[in-house]
């Protein structure tokens, strides 16, 4: 695992990372993985992170070299969308048995598995994922992949990110390293042009990138590679010929963006397609970067025209929700949303932000939030489940926007909730996506079930006294009293 250790050191020492730049040499060497507390940890492992980043590549066979848990418990669990191939949703694992582990048959089984996949599915490439157990027993997946690639004339890419190496975020970066080492730059495109860009960290969840791609095409930008959402292997293999890169989803793939700039001189910026102003800013940044790299400056005008037109439409659509949502209180509980223009848009239509998690935010982000919210008391690092439940059950927010992890805290507290993380069902990117988000907030808050579940059962809120009626000692009196009670109750509860 020496080379893996070196890789981990390398990705932790990320010069393009704001956090990292703020550290001294010693702290930098220690890396940024925080030690987990046994019995009080949450979140996925490095393998999980690597697979999240790579699995949406649609024409690749993703082969997990592991006992059943790593793949058997997790396959086909994400909502990325494909415009064509479906192979990525077929699950492949070596499903190691006790005998395989004891007899050291892992490498042989892996090699044969690659052969079976190649013969049956003819994939564009096979990605082989190492895991805790196969790392522990010392299976050399690099060697197996190299041999298989030679033997079968097929790209076979080792992904060295076993779970025990660290967190999901580390896995994201190790996956990016694998793409840099084995995929990007291996195919020369014959159609490279001055308007080609890459998008990094866009997963095309619920197909939401398809809300953005036509906007890019309208101003004349071509997406050479969107990594990983709806990507094909060859897109990524030839991604090194793009002229500019936009990195979305915070810093998950920052090492990929920076190294592509170093190796192939592709400038990058960090942006977001969530929220109206951020979408516009992203389009403008892309156009400017392309012009800087030699594209015709005319694209800037086209971009401005499109932005003006689309923003006007979106704001007009959002205005329709103002009456219904004005004054509603939103609790944003997610580490993932870096896009403060979502907050901006919600406030623009009169919603109030009563709290926001800043767990994954940078110092710069926090300053920005402070400015927007005008009150830093509404920022919290992380709220314990119990506190969150207490806050919501006292109805201190009208809706919580978060990821699946805290879904049931909101629901059990009988509070409207909307998923804005990876399991979400609706596309929220671009101008139309922002309108969709507000529409979903409106639907969630105004659903008639809240009036039903928040009312106690009728027999739990009877005025005192009625309960005692049936306990009168005299038998006849009891019956009479009971009849009276039933009559009165029926009268009170019935339709009139």
């Amino acid at each position, binding site marked *: 695992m020496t080379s893996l250790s070196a890789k981990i050191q390398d990705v932790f020492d990320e010069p393009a990372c704001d956090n990292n730049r703020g550290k001294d040499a010693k702290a930098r060497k220690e890396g940024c993985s925080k030690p987990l507390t*046994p019995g*009080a940890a949450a979140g996925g492992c490095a393998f999980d992170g690597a697979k999240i980043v790579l699995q949406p590549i649609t024409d690749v066979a993703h082969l997990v070299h592991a006992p*059943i*848990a790593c793949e058997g418990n997790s396959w086909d669990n994400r909502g990325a969308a494909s415009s064509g191939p479906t192979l990525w949703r*077929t*699950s492949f694992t070596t*499903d190691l048995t006790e005998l395989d582990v004891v007899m050291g048959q892992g490498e042989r089984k892996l090699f044969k598995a690659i052969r079976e996949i190649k013969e049956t599915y003819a994939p564009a490439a096979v990605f082989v994922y190492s895991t*805790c157990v196969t790392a522990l027993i010392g299976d050399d997946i690099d060697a197996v992949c190299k041999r298989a690639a030679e033997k079968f004339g097929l790209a076979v890419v080792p992904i060295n990110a076993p*779970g025990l190496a660290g967190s999901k975020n580390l896995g994201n970066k190790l996956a990016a390293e694998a793409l840099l080492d084995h995929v990007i730059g291996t195919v020369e495109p014959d159609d490279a042009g001055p308007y080609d860009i890459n998008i990094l960290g866009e997963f095309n969840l619920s197909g939401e990138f398809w809300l953005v791609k036509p906007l890019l095409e309208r101003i004349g930008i071509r997406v050479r590679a969107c990594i990983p959402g709806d990507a094909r292997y060859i897109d990524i293999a030839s991604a090194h010929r793009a002229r500019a890169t936009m990195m979305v989803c915070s810093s998950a793939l920052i090492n990929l963006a920076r190294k592509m700039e170093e190796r192939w001189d592709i400038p990058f910026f960090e942006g977001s397609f969530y929220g109206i102003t951020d979408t516009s800013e992203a389009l403008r940044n892309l156009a400017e970067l392309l012009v800087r790299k030699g594209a015709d400056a005319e694209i800037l005008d086209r971009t401005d025209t499109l932005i003006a037109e689309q923003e006007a439409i979106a704001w007009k659509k959002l205005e329709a929700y103002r009456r219904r949502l004005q004054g509603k209180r939103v609790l944003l509980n997610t580490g993932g949303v870096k896009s403060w223009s979502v907050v901006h848009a919600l406030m623009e239509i009169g919603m109030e932000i009563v709290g926001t998690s800043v767990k994954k935010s940078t110092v710069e982000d926090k300053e920005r939030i402070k400015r927007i919210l005008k009150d830093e008391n509404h920022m919290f690092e992380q709220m314990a489940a119990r506190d969150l439940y207490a806050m919501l059950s006292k109805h201190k927010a009208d809706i919580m926007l978060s990821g699946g992890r805290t879904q049931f805290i909101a629901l059990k507290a009988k509070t409207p909730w909307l998923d804005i993380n990876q399991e979400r069902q609706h596309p929220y990117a671009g101008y139309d996506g922002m309108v969709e988000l507000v529409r979903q907030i409106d639907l969630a808050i105004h659903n008639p079930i809240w009036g039903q579940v928040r009312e106690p059962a009728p027999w739990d809120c009877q005025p005192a006294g009625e309960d005692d009626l049936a306990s009168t000692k005299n038998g006849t009196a009891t019956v009479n009293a009971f009849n009276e009670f039933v009559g009165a109750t029926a009268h009170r509860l019935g339709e009139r």
Partner: protein
Amino acid sequence: MVRILRNTKSAAVNPLKSSQPLGAAFAFLGVDGAMPLFHGSQGCTSFALVLFVRHFKEAIPLQTTAMDEVATILGGADHLEEAILNLKIRTKPKLIGVCTTALVEARGEDCASDIANVKLKHAEELAGTEVVLANTPDFDGAIEEGWAKAVAAMIEGITRSGARTRQPKKIAILPGCNLTVADVEHLRDMVESFGLKPIILPDVSGSLDGTVPDRWVTTTYGGTSVEEIRELGTAAQCIVIGEHMRHPAKMLHGLTGVPYVVLQSLTGLKAVDRFVSVLSAVSGAAVPARVRRRRAQLEDALLDGHFHFGGKKIAIAAEPDQLYQLATFFAGMGSKIAAAVTTTDMSKILEKVPAEWVQIGDLGDLEALAAGADLLVTHSHGRQASQRLGIPLMRVGFPIFDRLGSQHKLTILYEGTRDLIFEVANIFQANQHAPTPEALDPFRKREMPDELRSSPLTRH
């Protein structure tokens, strides 16, 4: 005699299996105030947790010892100790159910003595919390095995041993993992209707039935109590549902002398009759009128439903006991088991599956073997095969993540069998095509034997 076809592939395609520790955690989740703990890397827990949440649509208590690279090299005992103590302080559980994973088992850790040391060293701090261990490496078994090991571990670790005064009305029931929340609720009602007092271990109907408690609880709320597990030895009789629960019942018998009877399935008229006879014999009570009425309803459902089942080709992929439960149900309705796929060759029940052969394998095998079948029967992951083959899918077992309410579906006893008949008949009715002249043309495909020709009324 059923032929068992061993798996010969190196690449499993679209796994049928979930992992063994997940099965163990599932069983621990059926105990009140429980907190299952995976001894492995954080991903092991995260994946199982997400899958549970997708299936139950509930917050699921499940924690990890968070093994990292250093712990993997130096040993995980410290992580295990720290996790147990942290859980005790933060969540005050009545039971911590430790499930090992492939990572610590491949290292060869002696978790049993690690836990014994923790208990000894922290006896005072851990008072009021039972800690039990299920050895459940991922490279062995699947949900059934993990579930059974967890129940055995609870009996071994918690139940008071030695011959006890038996309470004539108290019945211990050890249900297999293929019973839904609704099944367990219904089972309890049935047993109680004979004047008996059932103790069901595990009891997912108390903990995973989807309610809204009035406070935030970090452990399970509801299920078998630890006290009930402790007093299991005073039961007059133990009833086991599913072959995979034989081992825990044997263990209970060995520890306390409680006699047990194994019923392999509670689905299908004859199987339920057997169970009802056992209850009647144990309680000395006559079969209640309500139960007789349900039986009559099932008779009627058999009569109304059998038209839709006769000659149908069914492809099933499920863990052994559920495979047996469903295959006998379909065969009992006149259908043919065209393909049977399961997870392990270790279960004795496979010999009784009414099919020519049982393939040990995955959903890739099911897809290959099911061509020409009328119905696919497996969990939600069968959806891709169903789409590609154009054959309807009946969702059973775990996980079911793309339909709501799977836990409230009844699959056992007279009522559950009746419901299954209706469900399947309705799937067939929803997928039937109108007759066409081409399909009925006597000169087309006359060389094809009748049983291979599909009926136009039921093809899709």
